[in-house]
């Protein structure tokens, strides 16, 4: 079933059952939002996506309102922009203004909105939530003073991850996202919550203080752990991977597990092998590549000569690339001359 509606004067034919926000996104109408994520159930909490529908007494949220035949939507006008501005201003009135040292600066939706609405001063200055103490878990920095209660972290933890490690507790101005009894976070540490947080309330601890957004280069790659093949984005600063994220439109819908998201530090471990090593008298000694490779070629050659090619075998790795695996077996088959090739997880 298709319905026809009008958005900002443009007539659009869409699938029945979509929301105004979905349609607007598909057709490039910009509607700001803080609490919506297409991967989560609509929430309608931040109220930024208010739009005016002709004939309705008050604006409605685009994220929760399904399109209907003949609907006439205005995504922006003076009244609506005024409401959005007030909402951002209210949020800022209860938010620390430490953007200059905030890890999220440059990647923060709230900051962007404040900029967009040019909110230099705040008419609503007043009491601000203040929390002391920090969460002792090793992965996720929780700064609840920066939380805007969009509820995305709670929804992702419940709807997607099925863990429900956090919930909104209390109500009204005292509402707060926290683990039960406000203890330290104790969960699967998938960091899905970090990935959906629009502000600096939830950050990966490992990445903190490692570089500003402008200095970060992003490289698309694939997770090195299990066989799911999750697409990851490596955030690189100063020749070091400092953060891992994932794009929502990827195979894994932007979701990762604790290892994929937070388990990348092995890469810059001081334990990494940095030189070829040759064991002499029971001890490893550093060698040059030429030295090491010549030695290996020589020894393989000797053994092949003496015991035949089938006295040599190779174990390849499920951790290496296809290209490496291909060349490895080609090496054994064509260069050494044996079919003694296996990898340990072929079953």
């Amino acid at each position, binding site marked *: 079933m298709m319905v026809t509606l009008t958005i900002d004067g443009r007539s659009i034919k869409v699938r029945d059952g979509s929301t105004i926000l979905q349609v607007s996104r598909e057709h490039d109408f910009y509607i700001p939002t803080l609490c919506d994520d297409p991967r989560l159930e609509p929430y309608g909490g931040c109220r930024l996506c208010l739009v005016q529908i002709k004939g309705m007494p008050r604006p409605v949220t685009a994220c929760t309102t399904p399109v209907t035949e003949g609907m006439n939507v205005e995504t922006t006008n003076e009244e609506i922009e005024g*409401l959005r501005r*007030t*909402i951002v201003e209210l949020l800022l009135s209860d938010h620390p203004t430490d953007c200059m040292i905030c890890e999220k600066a440059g990647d923060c939706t709230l900051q962007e909105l404040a900029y967009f609405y040019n909110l230099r001063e705040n008419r609503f200055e007043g009491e601000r939530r203040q929390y002391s103490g920090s969460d002792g878990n090793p992965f996720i920095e929780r700064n609840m003073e920066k939380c805007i209660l969009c509820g995305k972290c709670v929804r992702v933890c419940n709807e997607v991850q099925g863990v429900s490690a956090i919930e909104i507790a209390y109500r009204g101005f005292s*509402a707060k996202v926290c683990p039960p009894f406000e203890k330290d976070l104790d969960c699967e540490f998938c960091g899905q919550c970090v990935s959906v947080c629009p502000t600096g309330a939830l950050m990966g601890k490992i990445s903190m203080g490692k570089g500003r957004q402008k200095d970060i280069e992003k490289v698309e790659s694939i997770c090195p752990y299990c066989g799911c093949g999750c697409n990851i984005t490596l955030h690189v600063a100063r020749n070091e991977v400092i953060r891992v994220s994932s794009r929502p439109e990827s195979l894994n819908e932007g979701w990762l597990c604790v290892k994929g998201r937070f388990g990348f530090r092995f890469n810059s471990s001081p334990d990494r092998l940095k030189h070829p090593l040759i064991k002499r008298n029971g001890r490893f000694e550093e060698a040059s590549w030429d030295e090491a490779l010549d030695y290996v070629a020589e020894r393989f050659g000797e053994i092949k000569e003496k015991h035949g090619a089938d006295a040599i075998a190779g174990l390849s790795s499920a951790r290496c690339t296809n290209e490496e695996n291909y060349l490895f077996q080609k090496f054994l088959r064509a260069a050494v001359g044996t079919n003694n090739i296996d990898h340990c997880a072929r079953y």
Partner: protein
Amino acid sequence: MMQECNIVIKVCMGTGGIAAGGTGVVSAFNEEIKAAGINASVEKNCSVHNVGCRGFCARDVLVDVIIDGEKTTYEYIKSDMVPRIVQEHILQGQAVGDWEVKEDYHTFHEKQVKVVLSDCGEVDPEDIESYVERGGYEALKKVLATMTPEETIDLIKASGLRGRGGAGFPTGLKWEFARKAPGEPKYLICNADEGDPGAFMDRSVIEGNPHSVIEGMIIGAYAIGALKGYVYIRAEYPLAVERLKIALDQARQRGFLGNRIQERDFNFDIKIKLGAGAFVCGEETALIASIEGNRGMPKAKPPFPAQKGLWGKPTVINNVETLANIAYIIRNGADWFAQFGTEKSKGTKVFALTGKVKNSGLIEVPLGIALREIVYDIGGGIEGDRKLKAVQTGGPSGGCITADMIDIAVDYESLAKAGSIVGSGGMVVMDETDCMVNIAKYFLEFTQAESCGKCVPCRIGTKRLLEILERITDGRGRPGDMDLLEKLSNDIRSASLCGLGQTAPNPVLSTLRYFRDEYEAHIHEKRCPAGVCKNLLTYSILEEFCKGCTMCARVCPAGAIVGEKKKPHKIIQEICVKCGACFETCKFKAIKKG
């Protein structure tokens, strides 16, 4: 039972009656009657009954003594007064004139039209028989025997009944939506989460005549095709809950609930769900979340509960008073009901008339009645004959009607035009000693504390509104504050998710509209004209009146009053906490407030 006896004693045992000692009065009657051996010696049947609230709780304990159909009503009865009533009235046939209700008791009732409350105060709420004797459950039998669900809906539509919980949505239409909505099973919920401070209609109806609500629910369930119903009721109403439980059991025993109701192919049962203390759960979607066992956070509509409600199924939520109307409408017809009220607001409405009015209590009036009649005729005017300032209607979602507008018709449309609402029916009368800025602040404190916190305008916006009001009443108001209040109020109204947030600024907007001068006095002159806002008050002792009795010094919690015995005292302003204790204590009017 009641009708078989020629002496019937009815004791008001609502929450008000019990608070005034009703339990003792009932047992005193029972003891005295037994001691006097009335049933044996006078050869008359005498029975004592608990009845629910008849509205005039301020006069409790109210007692009816009915001898051979002739009723005498006593007020302010305590248990030690019972022996005299039994001796003089019951045994000797001579009513105790001093204790009888006065003229004002009758004027209180005269202008009322009782539909929902017609059996409250008459039937024994813990005895289904007394309801059945007065025609109870006849409507249900009629519906099941002679009407289709569609006909039932049509009849309710024709009556013009609108939801009594606040929004005033036509009840028949709501039922029709749910009946036609796809999805099984369907649910019917009775919303008894009466959260408005200053409202007690629902409590009184359930305490006084629970079966009228149950009968309404069963008829509603039949009409929409529901198999299961819930009564979502505040845990703060223990007596109502208890009586409802008893009534449900009795209804089940009589075959009005359960499987094959009245031997027909119709099953329906009702469960009680206790609210756990959250005002926002009066909102339909929050109420559903609460019944499902979650935090009572509202959801965006659409989808409406009639399409996707409890457990995602079509659900009708009706308020107690709405449901209590149903049986009477069925029994007497749509036209009978529609004769009361105005063109768009049919029938009667129950109000909780309280505040600075002489006769406070529960009243039922036809919609469209002039507010003046309510305040001055039924309510008997202002306490202490002070000047009326305003009537607040609709609780924290409502607004004020000023003294100038006292002739306004009380119906959905007129009140809305004046910037207020009928709401669930709270009506608080205020006089010149009430500060309207303080009232606005009071309501904001309430809504702010009850905000669920889901949406930004309500969570932070009401907090900021309250902060601005606090600084105004503290004497720290700023020149632009009235503008700011108005702008923020309008934004909260437009942008909030649910009814709680959308209506939360109403008390502010309404007082700003009608009492600008009071705001200005607070902001610019740092003065509270009504003498309510503590920080804008000073208490001082008028030496010429002070007798040096030391009473004030003794009650002062801060030790701010000094002076020798028999000599004029003095208040040290730096220490004074402005609690007003001295002002109330002084017998010589020597304390000046201002």
